[in-house]
Every structure is written in C-alpha cells, then in structure tokens.
C-alpha cells in the first residue's frame, strides 16, 4: 500500500474512484458532479480516472449532479458525487430525495461557509443543513480518515440492513487542500472490501415499476419507520464494516465516536473535524499537568451516537461542545443533539456550547484554553458563547 503526500481532496477522489471501479463486475460506476471551490480537485480526480465500466457525467449544476447519481444508482450503478457550501444548498432537494429513495449514494462534502458574506473557508453549516434528509453523516479530521471513511461509507450504505446514502465531510482547506502522507489502498483490497452492489429495489428495463410514487399516510409512515429502523441498526453494522476494513487494509478506520482520556475526566470537550485534533493536543498537554480533562470526537453525526456519547462522559461533570456551525436562533447543532442525548439520563451534567472556527476561523490551542477556562469558571450552563473572533481576525491578515 503506497503512501503518498496528497491533499484531502485527492484522498477523497481516490476513495470514490476505487470504490466505483470495484463495482465493474456488476453495474459499474456513475457520477454526476459539478465543481465548486474547494471541492474542485475531487472533480478533477474522478474525471481523469480510467473507469472500466460506467462514467463520470459532467452536468450543469449540483441539482443535476445528484439527479444523475440517483438515476444511475436506481439502476444498480455504484454512484457518488461531491460538493460544497452553496452547491449543496442548490442540490438540497435531490439530496433529500436520494435519502428517501434509500439509494446508497456516497457523497463527499468539503465543509465550506454558506455565503454571504462570501467566504470559502471551513464551516460545517452546509452539510448540517442536510442533517434531517435520511443520510448518514461522518466528519473527518485528516486525509487518511477521509479516505478510509469514504470507503467504509460505501460498504455501510450498501448493506441490506441500512440502504441509506452517506456523506463524508472534511474541513475546507485545513483538510481538503493540505498535503500529508496518506496511505492509498490497492484496488484488489478495495474489491475485497466492497462486494458488487446488489440493490433490492433496483429498476429493470423489462420490469416496469414506480419507485417513490404517491403513498397514503399509513404507507408513507411505514416507509419513514423503515428508515428509523435502519438508522438504529447503523451502530452495529458500522462495527462489522470497521472490523472488515481493519482486517483487509490493516488499519482501523476509527469508531463512530473517538475518546481520548475520558475515563476519569471531569471536563470533557466534544468536538469534530480538525478542531478535535487541536483539542486532543491541548488535552494531552494539560493531562501532563494532572488536569482531569478528556475529549470526545464525534465522527458520526447521523445517526447521532447517543449511547456512546453518554458512556464516554460517565465521569464528567462538565461538557463543552465546540461547534464550527451555527443554527440561527438555536445555537450549535452538535450541542443541541448532545443536550438531547443526556436529557433524562444526566440532568446534573453542565453542558455548555462554544461557537468557534465558523467562517474559517483558525481554532488555535489558545482558543481551546479559553474555552476550558470559561467552562471551569462557570456555575451554570448558559447561552452559547462565541469564542475566538479576535483570533480569527488574526488568521488571514
């Protein structure tokens, strides 16, 4: 398995391509895709990949990109796409449709700020806008995790017990454009990991059928319930996929949440993406000084890993949720779901929200220290606190 110095976008493009190629013995690959900064490198990568069966379809918009991928997926192709920010907003209607069609499409999203103001840097608001559309969502912190999670997402999404589309996310530029050593799996191993796609509700030319036509309330409700049941199975199926991945590639793609020093931690930081990397390093340093601090990295956001999160925070008295996103009028989105996870389980737990790194702000160790200081000092949880605006100002000037 060669290791190369490549970008996060390159890693994603590679994973999408070899996964698609692995379906060449079945219905092949299909990808409708449209470029947008900072995702464009992915388009460039998949467009030049010499697929044996199937093709990349250049389209005129993100909406059509997803439409092409859906149509191909319904016919048994392994379908994928990629987008970012306002492109995802334009794609949104069909993103929802793919989820409710139960099509195992994999999309890579580069988390970028939704404008205006115009801004191309990291912010999770774009994919979290799609959080209720019956897609699995994973947030990655480095190139290797992007590559591994994307491969794993195909296996998970296509599993008969799940059959839901999956979204792999990475921070704009901090991951998408940063070149680091990344292990690229061999096609033969990918072929072993990803069996041919066999879609139960696949469309056939010789068998006329309607997919997703008019449904009466009890029919529609049943289909929603089916989705809910599938979502509940994800945690277990994920572990199966993870084990298989580890066996084939010799590398653990990581759990749905990843804890660091939480066993006896009184203060727990909950973070995602590259903020988790920085927070982990701060925790490591402060642990050396004997502080009982821990970190939970939320890798999977949909379905939300409630039980795992509760377990990780058993020793904690205070939890800080760091959100690189903001639901206007409510607060951080990871924070809302974290609060809900503890509702009725740990009503004594102080859960405070910190909004930081939005619009591409650089979340430095200093910002994490300030968050920990605030968390330690407060008597009660309060409104979400905006952190690091001054630091962000220094970032790009």
């Amino acid at each position, binding site marked *: 398995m060669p290791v190369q110095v490549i970008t996060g976008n390159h890693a994603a493009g590679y994973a999408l391509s070899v996964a698609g190629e692995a379906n060449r013995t079945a219905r092949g690959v299909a990808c409708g895709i449209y470029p947008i900064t900072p995702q464009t490198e992915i388009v460039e990568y998949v467009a030049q990949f010499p697929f044996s069966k199937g093709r990349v379809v250049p389209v005129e918009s993100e909406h059509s990109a997803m439409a092409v991928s859906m149509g191909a997926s319904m016919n048994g192709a392994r379908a994928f796409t990629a987008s970012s920010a306002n492109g995802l907003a334009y794609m949104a209607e069909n993103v929802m449709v793919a989820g409710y069609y139960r099509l195992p499409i994999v999309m890579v999203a580069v988390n970028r700020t939704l404008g205006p103001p115009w801004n191309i840097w990291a912010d999770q608001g774009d994919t979290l806008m799609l959080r209720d559309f019956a897609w699995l969502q994973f947030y990655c912190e480095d190139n290797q995790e992007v590559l591994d999670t994307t491969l794993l997402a195909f296996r998970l999404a296509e599993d008969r017990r799940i059959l839901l589309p999956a979204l792999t996310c990475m921070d704009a530029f901090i991951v998408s*454009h940063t*070149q*680091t050593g990344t292990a690229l799996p061999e096609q033969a191993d990918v072929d072993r990991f990803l069996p041919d796609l066999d879609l139960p509700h696949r469309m056939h030319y010789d068998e006329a059928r309607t997919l997703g036509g008019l449904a009466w309330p009890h029919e529609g409700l049943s289909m929603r319930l089916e989705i809910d049941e599938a979502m509940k199975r994800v945690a277990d199926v994920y572990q199966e996929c993870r084990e298989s991945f580890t066996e084939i590639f010799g590398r653990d793609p990581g759990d749905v949440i990843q804890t660091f020093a939480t066993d006896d931690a009184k203060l727990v930081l909950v973070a995602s993406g590259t903020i988790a990397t920085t927070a982990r390093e701060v925790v490591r340093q402060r642990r050396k000084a004997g502080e009982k601090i821990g970190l939970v990295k939320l890798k999977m956001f949909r379905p939300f890993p409630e039980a795992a999160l509760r377990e990780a925070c058993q020793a904690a008295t205070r939890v800080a949720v760091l959100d690189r996103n903001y639901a206007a009028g409510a607060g951080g989105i990871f924070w809302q779901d974290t609060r809900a996870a503890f509702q009725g389980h740990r009503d004594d737990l102080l859960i405070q929200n910190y909004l930081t790194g939005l619009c591409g702000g650089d979340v430095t160790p200093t910002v994490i220290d300030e968050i920990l200081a605030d968390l330690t000092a407060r008597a009660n949880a309060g409104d979400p606190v905006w952190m690091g605006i001054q630091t962000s100002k220094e970032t790009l000037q």
Partner: protein
Amino acid sequence: MIEIRIHGRGGQGGVTLAKLIATSRFLQGLSVQAFGLYAAERSGAPIQAFCRYADEPITNRNLIYEPDHVIVLDPTLVGPVIATGLKTGGWILVNSPEPPGEFANQFARYRLATVDATTIARDNNLGTRSVPIVNTALAGAVGRMLAIPLQEICAALEHLGFKGSNLAAASRAYEEVRLVESPREVGPPEALGAPADERRGPSLLEGAGAALPALKTGQWATEQPRRRQMIPPCNHICPAGNNVQGFLNALARDEPDEALEILLRTTPFPSICGRACPAPCMEACNRIELDGAVNVRQMERYAGDHGVVTPAPLARRDERIAIVGSGPAGLTAAYHLARFGYRAKVFESGAEIGGLLRSGIPEFRLPEDVVAREIDRILGLGIEVETDRRIDRQTLLGLARDHDAVLVATGLQEQRDLQLGMDGTEAVVQGIDFLDHVHRGDVRVDGESVVVIGGGNTAMDAARSALRLGARSVRVVYRRSRQEMPAIREEIHDAAEEGVSIDLLTQPVALHEEPSDGLLRRYRLTCRRMELGEPDESGRRAPMEIPDSDFELTCNRVILALGQSPDVSVFPEGTEVREGTQLLGLLETPLFAIGDLATHDGTIAAAIGSGRRAAVHIHRVLSGAHVRITEHADEYCDVDVWCDEVIRADALKLHLFERQAAAEGESLPIIERRSTFDEVHMGLEDATEAARCLSCGVCNECDLCCTYCPEGVLKRVGHRLEFDYAYCKGCGVCVTECPRSVIFMSHL
C-alpha cells in the same frame, strides 16, 4: 518541528514548492504538512504557502504564525511583512539576483540567502518568459540552505514527476544560492503593541458591508495596461507635416471647422493640397490592408472648402523677415512667420503672387478661385507683398541689411533641355512655359498632333491642356515604365482616360522638320526603344537603349517636360544650397534657402513642410523661445507613453473593422472634358469618408476598452482614460479589445 512560510504570487508554484520541501522530508520518514492559504486570488496575486515537518506525528492543524524560515518567490514582495512572526535567526531566502547583503539592513535579525531563480527558470524554459515558474529552482536553494542533500531534493522532484530541466534548475540553484550565515548583532525585537481589544469584526448592516476590508486586487497584477500614442503612417509620411489622423478624426465627428484649424497649424493650403497633392499618405495608409486607403486627399479638400477658420497672429513682434519668392514654400514661411507675429514681406519677380500654384497647375485640376482664396487667407495675416521685383545677388545683400532674416524660395527656374537638334526653335516649347500660356489664355493647338516628352505632372498637365485646346492627338513619350512615372497616379489615369496615349520606354533622340502641308509645321521625332536596367541614383530602374530599335513619330509640336533645376545665381559664388535650417553665406543676418530651390522635391506638400520648418527655426533663433520643431505636428493625446514608432497594419486588429469601400466622388464626364477647363473632380458631398480612418496608434475615444473591462476599473474622464490600478488585475482584455494598439501591457 520546522515550519516554513512561502510568499509568492499565484502561478509561481509556491504551493508546489511547499509540497516539494515536504516530500523531500516525507521520503526521509518525517511527518509532513504542506498547504496554501487560499482566497479569491488568481494568477499574480500575492499568496502564502506553508510547510511543516517533524520527527513526531504532526497534530497542529493551524496556520503557521511563527515560522522558522521564510522563502520569497518574487522580489517585489520583499517588505517588512515577510518577516512577520519569523523566529530570530531564521533564514530568509529571496529569489533575487542581488547578493544577500542587499537585504541585510531590512532584515538584520535573520540569516539571509538569495538565488536568481527567475533567470535559472527562464534558462531552463520553466513557465513562460513573463511568468517563469521558479519553484523547482528554489527547492534546490532551500536544500542547500537547510542542509538537505541535493539528492534528497532531487528525489522529491522525481517522486512528484519533475524531470530534466526542473532537476537541472534545482541543481544549479543548489550551487548558485548565496548564503549569509550570521545575522548582525542587534538588540531584542521590539515588543509588538498589544492588540486592540476589538473582539468583533465589522457589521454587515452598519455601513452596508463597507466596513469590510477592501480587497485591492491591483496588487495581483504582474502587468498593467498603459496608454501610448504611436505615429500613424499618414502623419509620418506627410511632407507638409500635417496631422492627417487628427483632421480626419475631427471630420469624422462632423467638425469641419476643427479639421481646418488642425490643418492650418501646419499648412496654409488645404484646399490646394486637397486637389493637387500626390498624397503619399494614401499610399502609406494601413487601411489598404483591409479595403483600400482612406481618401485623404478628398477629405483635406473637404476640410479646406467647408471649414471656416480665420487664422490670426498669435503675437506681435518687431522683427522684419524678407521672403524671396511667392510659391508654396515662400508663402508657407510667410504664413507661419506672420502667425508668430513677425513682419513678413514677400518679394515676387512676376506680376502676381503664388508662383506655380497659379501658372503651373491648370484650372481643371486646381481652379484659380481656390488658389486665390487660400492666398488671400495668408495675406489676411498682414503680410506685405512686392510684385515685379526680381532679387539678384546684389539686392539680396540689401535685403539682408534691412531685415532680421531672409528666406529664399525661388523654386526651380532652369528648365531642362533635351538635345534633339532643334532646341530653341518654335518647334520645341517648355512645358512650364506652355502651361503659363494656357493660364494666360494665349495659346491654341487646334488640329495639332502634340508630343509631350516627360513623365511628371507637368507632362500630364501639358498633355491634358493640349487636348482641351483642340489637339487632334496627344502622345506622351517617357523613357521608363509607368511604374517610374513621377506624376500623380490619378493624373496619369485621368490623362489616359481622356485620350492621351502614353509611349513608355521610349527615348526621343532627334527632331527634324518635315515638309509642311501648308497649315501646320510638321516634324519628325526619331525615338529609340528602351529597357530597364539596374536602379540608378534616384532609386528608379535606369533606362537602357535597345540597339537598332529606332522608330519615328510625326507631330506638329513638341513639349518638353523634363523637370527643372534651381537657379542659384542669387547667392554668393560657391554657396552650397542646402535645405531648411542651414544658414547660407557669411552674412550676420540669417539667410536660408527653402522649398524646391533647396530640396528639388517638386511637390507642394514638400514646399509647405520646408517653409514651416524654416519659419519655426527662425522664430526659435530670433525669439529664443523654446519652440518644438518636429517633422510632424502630431497632437499629443493625454497618454502615458509617447511611442516614437510608426504603427504598421499588423499592429492593428483589422478584423474589428467593417469593410467599406473608399468614397471617390463624382468626375466630369470624359466627353465634356475635351472642351472645358472646368475642374474634373467635383469633390465629396460629405465627410463620412473620414470615418473610415482607423486612427492607427492614436486613441480616438472609441472606448471599446471601457466597454469590455471585466472589472469595471477603466473609465473615461474627459479625454483621459483612467485605470484604477488599485483594482486592475492586469487581465489584458482592454489590450485585446483596443483595435489600434493604443493600450499595451507594461511589466511591473
């Protein structure tokens, strides 16, 4: 961990340099990151790239604020900002041909290195000449600077697919980079001021976003558009020095008064030249490459005939200037001197002033009222005239005593002869004399066969006049081919059209009288066939006799039009008569020879130019005023650069112009021309022909540049184009759209 920051411009390969450095460390088993700091930048914009490497796994996902070393890809980016946060003693590597010491004062706290990566990249054909890609060369320099062996740098290059010239560039930079290891002893760094306690950035509502920092995209530019003015070929070639493009532009704007005013700055004879000028401007016109020359001659005639301008003296001066001769050179000099305010006096040996303007060009080409009108306009400036006053050597000395300067413009007086055996008899008449008789109306050639010898305008005028005076036949005999005929093309054409036959490559050798039939004398003209040999001193191919090719013509009259030579007897013995601004003789008073007398050129336009130059020169000598003397009176537009270069057709974007044939105007029907001296060409009824002028190399405010500027940073303010260089990215669309090469890109 080592952290490196790279300052460069978009397109130079800064991010790839970061990757090259990272890869060289990665291949040695280190943990690495390489990334750029991206925004909306495009090619040429200042960018930053970063690289960090460490023995341990890297957990830092932040930007680099305190780099260990800094690399600068573009020397224009060198400034205090490149050392921001740089650790004391760190390296600063600059792509520059200068030695590192050049930067020592600016960056005393750091180790310095320089390498001329731009030259190395160009020598290795990396990138383009304007935007060389310098990253692979700098990678070699970085290797030397950071003690990374060259083979490890080359391994990284090869790992990333760089071959050949890139490896050569890296190796050469590795050798050539100059290092200054020790920073100078300096005190501790100044403490940075505490950051303002400004937790929040700007509001979107207050000031409607105006509080956001402006992105001055002009700093992305490596080239900027500038305006220049080049010399249109018509202006360049005009012997009178007229601003042809300028007056055509005024006519195109339907401003005949302004057009005339522009012409009157150089020539007092636009209506005359608009009829009788050979118009070399039309032969030089770039529009020939598209659909035919602009009919400049007719446009000058239009401006002269339709414009209304009364020139007045610009000042009043006491100096007296004598001008000997009242042809176009003398009158032009008098005109300009009078405008400068001098008391000019013209001495004419004949009864009326105007010289050959009156007697040398027949009415059907140049009506007398036109000549009179333009001469009257000159005299209206208050010029004194003395006619019937022949100036000889003695009286010239007198003039010099009584005047502050003397100009001699007596033209060409001596008519050339051909030794045919009957010279000096009534069988042979000089063309100039014939035309003078025509002018006075005391000659007829009814029923005669007339032979005109010569190929110039006098020959054509004599031949055409003879036809109008009742000749039975007129033949022009010329010893070279039509190509070499000095007459105006159009006049040769008109003569042929009217029935003049032209015997080319024919040399008359002898004339004999034949027995007459009683009414008319008869002559036998022996001619010899010629062929063209090598070019002679005139540049034209010399005629060579063909042996045994003699033949004979019978005629009743021979007109000689072989050209004239100057009569220099007026000057002191031994004076070498040269043109224009060369003083003659040893008198204290400035004395100049001008016009045909000095130039032998023979055209009105050249005489005008000579007269104007002499006037300007005298004004400068007498007044001490700094008057610009140029060959051409081109108007300077409000441009950045005056380009002293004649613009050729290949510098124009001819495809941007619509094809449109030149307007020729009506002519008198041929049948009528035999019996009248009425003007043959009637002139154009309007000035729309002027709009065909391409305005080569001179902005005519077409404003395509403003229309197509994609950034909206180019606008017209009055006659000036204003580029907002703070925002101009140097895309060059204005250059592409400018049809006339006015806008060009200038390297920064």
